[in-house]
Structure formats: C-alpha cells, structure tokens
C-alpha cells in the first residue's frame, strides 16, 4: 500500500497548472507570428483545444493512453469516463500522488500536442476542419503513441525507449504531423512573399510563457518533488539558454544581426529538444544539446524549408519535429544512470544499444504520425474541406471564421 506524499502532490499540482499555461502561451507565440488578420484564429484554435481535448481526455483519451494494456498497442476503454481512476495512487505511474492528479497532468500534454501542429496550417485552414482533424488526431495518433511510450505495457516502453517528458510523444509526433499538414494543405496564397510577423512582442511573451511552463512540463515529469525534478529543471533551462544563444550568434554571423525572433526560436528549439533528455542527462549534456539544436533547427528553418519550398508557416516541423527527433537521439547518447538510476546509459556511457532503441522508437512514431496525419487530413478534406476559399484567405480567418477582429482603428 502506497501513501500520498504531500510534497510530490503539491509539485505536480503546480506543474499541471504550468503546463496548462503553455497552450495559451503558444497562442501568443504563434499569434504574434501570423499576419494581423489571423491572430484570433490562432488563439481561438488554441483555446478551443484546451476545452475540447480536456473533455476528450476524461471521456476516453486517458483510458486509451494509460488504461490497462492491450498487446502493447492501446489502453482500451475500461477507464473511460475516469471509471476506476480515483484518488488513491496508481503505482504503475506515480506511486505518491493521487491517480487523478497524474491523469490531469497528462491531460495538459494531450492538449498542447495537437496545438503545436497549428503552426503548420496557420492562416489557411477552415475552423471546422481544424476541429475535426484535431480531435481525430488526438484520438488516433496521440493516445496510442502515449500508450506505446509511457503506458504500462506499451511496446516502446517495454523495448526500453527513453522519453522523459515527451520528445517522441509530443514533439516528434506533432512535428511530423505538422509536416504532413503543410504538405497536404499546400502553401499560403502569396508564399513566400508573406508579410513579416505582425506582433513580435506577443511572440516573445508567448515564448516566455512557454519557457516558464516548460519547467512544469519537464521537471514535473519526474512525478516527484526531489532530486530528479531538480535535475530536469536545470537541464530544461540550460538547453533553452544554449539554444537561444546559438541561434542568435548564427544569425549575427550569417545575416549580420541577431533578431528577437531568432532568440526565441532558439530557446523553443532548445526546450523541445531537451524534453526527452531532461531527467536523464547532466547539465553539461543539456547545454551541448541546446547548442547543437540551435544550429540544427536554424538550418532546418532557414535553409532546408526554403530549398524544399513547403510552407510550414510557423516552423512546427522545423523546430518541434527536427528538434524532437534530434533530442530523442541525443538522449540515446548522453543519458546516464548517474543522473537517473531508473533511466539507462547512452552511447557516451558505453551502452550503444540505447541509441539504436531511441532511433527505432523515433522512426516508428515519426512515420506513424506522418502517415496517419496525412490520411486524416485527406479524410477531413473530403468531409468538410480543409482550406478556406482564396477570398476568405485574403480577408483573413478572424473575420471569415469567427466574425471578429483583433484590432480596431478608432475607439
């Protein structure tokens, strides 16, 4: 019989609230980056996901992800409607906090993951199509994948894949889904001659809220309030700092000036990349991860995207997908049991097989999300139509999808 630890419970309650704040933070981050006629559409989509996925999670999402295992693939429906998910701890997941707290903490991850994809189809997707796609995606892509990696009996967990806070489940899955969305929807009208971000201070506010919330995301994933949470907390912060600096310096060298957008992009890249590794790597390891990902994501956004010509409008794939994949691999190199005895040693600590496991998990989840997302988008296109009309795209989604306008001129 396990008992509830008040320190662990307090920390996880706070972490849950921190992760909740990330989705509105993302609304400001993405909202500031789009043109002024589309900021509300981004914010409505983010806030709608907080509402809809929270309800989906309680109704059946949590059960599919974490419910009793079926063949390592899916959690089944026996915990649907939180049936049997009570206040007593569940030692399979978090032995010292109420089971419902673990449930609601995980809910916030389920909310933000589809929200990350918004960056790929921003400024051109019909709201009804967005909503239908997001709910289907959460159910058919996110929930099974969360089970594979984190659920008791999930086949990737059994295989030994390490994903501390969602490098695979959140960033690789959302990133590859975002790439599918950018390809299926096609470019925005006028791309690449699109007006620059309409409100960078909003984007910085959003990035700051994400950075702040990420402490709950990663350090909260320790599920206890002790040494592991502290280790993950520091790794998170250091990777963000190193990523921001790396990106800004690259800009300074290659295009003469460090930019506001560059610094926050580097920070987000560092945060996304350290997500699977936090809690397994040393602070020095996290700094190395942050620096490298600042460089890799810079080139993926500035060079690769431009060369290949797809319109991943706000770099959901370029930052979260590429960063997530890189982070999953780096975990297989830099993980050490000196930081987390429940983890594993990576390549750098003499255990090369861990890198192979990480690579396999990354490929399986990335391919699964890409393919299924592609199919879901085609399906949604048949049912309601993915894209708004060219006229409505010109006018903007705020007016055409929501009949609201973010800014007035007089009054």
């Amino acid at each position, binding site marked *: 019989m396990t008992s509830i630890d008040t320190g662990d419970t307090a920390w996880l309650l706070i972490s849950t609230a921190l992760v909740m704040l990330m989705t509105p933070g993302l609304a400001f981050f993405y909202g500031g980056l789009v043109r002024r*006629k589309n900021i509300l559409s981004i914010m409505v989509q983010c806030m709608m996901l907080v509402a809809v996925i929270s309800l989906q999670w309680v109704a059946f999402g949590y059960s599919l992800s974490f419910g009793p295992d079926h063949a390592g693939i899916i959690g089944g429906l026996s915990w649907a409607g939180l049936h049997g998910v009570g206040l007593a701890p569940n030692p399979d997941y978090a032995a010292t906090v109420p089971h419902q707290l673990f449930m609601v903490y995980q809910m916030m991850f389920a909310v933000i993951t589809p929200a990350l994809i918004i960056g790929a189809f921003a400024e051109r997707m019909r709201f009804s199509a967005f909503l239908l796609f997001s709910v289907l995606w959460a159910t058919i892509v996110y929930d099974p994948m969360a089970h594979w990696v984190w659920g008791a009996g999930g086949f990737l967990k059994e295989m030994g894949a390490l994903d501390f806070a969602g490098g695979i489940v959140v960033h690789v899955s959302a990133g590859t889904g975002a790439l599918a969305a950018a390809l299926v929807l096609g470019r925005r009208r*006028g791309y690449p001659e699109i007006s620059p971000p309409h409100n960078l201070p909003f984007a910085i506010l959003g990035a700051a809220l994400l950075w702040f919330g990420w402490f709950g995301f990663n350090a909260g994933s320790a599920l206890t309030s002790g040494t592991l949470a502290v280790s993950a907390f520091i790794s998170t912060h250091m990777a963000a700092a190193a990523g921001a600096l790396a990106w800004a310096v690259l800009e300074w060298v290659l295009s003469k000036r460090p930019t506001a957008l560059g610094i926050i992009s580097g920070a987000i890249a560092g945060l996304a990349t350290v997500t699977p590794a936090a809690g397994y790597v040393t602070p020095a390891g996290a700094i190395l991860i942050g620096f490298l990902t600042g460089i890799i994501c810079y080139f993926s956004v500035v060079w690769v995207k431009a060369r290949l010509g797809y319109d991943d409008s706000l770099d959901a794939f370029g930052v979260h997908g590429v960063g997530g994949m890189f982070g999953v691999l780096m975990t297989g190199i830099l993980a050490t049991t000196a930081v987390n005895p429940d983890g594993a040693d990576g390549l750098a600590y003499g255990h090369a097989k861990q890198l192979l496991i990480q690579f396999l998990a990354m490929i399986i989840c990335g391919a699964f999300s890409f393919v299924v997302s592609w199919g879901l988008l085609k399906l949604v296109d048949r049912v309601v139509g993915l894209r708004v009309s060219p*006229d409505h795209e*010109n*006018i*903007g989604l705020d*007016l*055409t999808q929501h*009949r*609201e*306008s973010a800014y*007035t*001129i*007089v*009054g």
Partner: protein
Amino acid sequence: MKYIIAIIQPDRLDEVIAALEEEEIILVTVSEVMGRGRQKGVAEVYRSHVERNGLLHKIKVEVAVNNNDVWRAVDAIANGARTGHVGDGKIFVLDMEECVRIRTGETGVSAIR
C-alpha cells in the same frame, strides 16, 4: 498632373499594388482608414470589421501621376479592387498644382517619376 485617391477593401491591396506595378506606377502611399458608404457599414459578406457609427475598415491608396498616366492608373486600381460586391470602394481624381522632390528640389512632371 493629377492626384488619385482610392478607397478600397483591405483584402484587395495586393492586387491593386500589383496592377499599378504592371503599369509601371511604382510610387504609392497607403494608409489604413475608416469609412462608410451608402450602406452605412452593412458588411454584406463580412469583408470588414464594423466599428462604431457603422464605420468599416478600409485602405486608402494615393498616387500622383502625370496627365497621360491618369487613366491607366485609374483602370489598374479599379481592376485590382473590383469584386462586384457592394463595398468595392471609390476612386477620386484631383487636379494637382505642384510636386516637389525634397532631396533635389526638382519640381513638376519630372519630380513625380
């Protein structure tokens, strides 16, 4: 010399600029304005946001041209801005007395180009 003022829908600005550019009319001034037409701001197809007093969000495009460019400019603006819906806007053509290029002090026809 004429001074052309056009009030257009915000979503037609790109087309109007492109149409002017095709006529090699490069110098334009653009501002955000509020306005209302005969419908007093009834936005038939919600193409714009209605503010108080039935005022709608519009774009004002201003172009100074020499006499032989006037109709090419007017046609370009009209073709770029026209959708056939209520609220496409208006074009006003005014006589212009003088034009001075600040940097060089040039005046008249050569200062416009």
